[in-house]
């Protein structure tokens, strides 16, 4: 066992949001993260990728992890480092994410014939971010840690 990577840096470079578990609030996380990323020097294309990944992570936390319980919060932690932005999204774990749910490989041909045409969120996160890791949050909920590298 190795220790999980520490995301602690100088305190002024860490931003934390505690969002209500209500769909729509993911947009607050998207806007905060893109504002920070722009100031760090990310190009617009990468900022768009980041917005999509954060939207999916927070939406999952609201819908699945916290099962729309408005009393529960979604914690978003953004850590600006010299050469990367680390994003952690944690829920309070009303429903635990199964291992198989964290690495889906959806196919549109199958989705077209299925009643449920969803299941693209975590796949998109993995496609768009440079590093993605699913763990258990300190609160006991689900946590996804995503990293996007700054290319100059």
């Amino acid at each position, binding site marked *: 066992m190795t220790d999980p990577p520490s995301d602690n840096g100088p305190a002024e470079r860490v931003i934390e949001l505690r969002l209500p578990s*209500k*769909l*729509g*609030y993911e*947009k*607050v996380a*998207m806007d905060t993260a893109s504002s920070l990323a722009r100031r760090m020097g990310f190009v617009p*294309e990468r900022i*768009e*990728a980041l*917005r*999509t990944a954060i*939207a*999916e992570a927070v*939406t999952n936390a609201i819908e699945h992890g916290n099962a729309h319980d408005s009393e529960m919060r979604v914690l978003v932690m953004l850590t600006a480092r010299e050469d990367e932005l680390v994003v952690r999204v944690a829920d309070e774990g009303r429903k635990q994410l199964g291992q198989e749910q964290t690495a889906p490989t959806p*196919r*549109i*041909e199958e*989705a*077209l*014939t299925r009643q*449920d*045409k*969803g*299941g*693209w*969120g975590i796949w*998109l996160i993995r*496609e768009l971010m440079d590093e993605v890791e699913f763990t258990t949050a300190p609160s006991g909920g689900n946590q996804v840690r995503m990293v996007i590298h700054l290319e100059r």
Partner: protein
Amino acid sequence: MLDDELSVSTRERDGVAIIDLVGDVTTFAEEKINTAYAQATGQGARHILLNFRQNDYINSAGIAILIGIVTEVNRNNQKLAVSGLSQHFQKIFRMVGLAQYADIYQDEEEAVRGFAATAA
């Protein structure tokens, strides 16, 4: 405040039923998009254009709604195209595979010309 930020309207141009989608395409969009599509289909539309405008937020739930439209378009032997997507969402549509089922055009003009060319 944050939940429903999409307006959907339908119009006809040169034999193409254009569904304008202005705003966010998320889970809240399902009924509006499906209703607009059903209305166009009920009026006998063969060519359907989803014309995206000011969509800086399309999420996986929105993608699932659009896959549902593709299923219906295939069932009804219609032709589907999309226009007005940002570069980012054009890329996502290609990644997901939606581009196999809907031609992607930069804007409405190009899409209408594209439909005319395939119908000729």
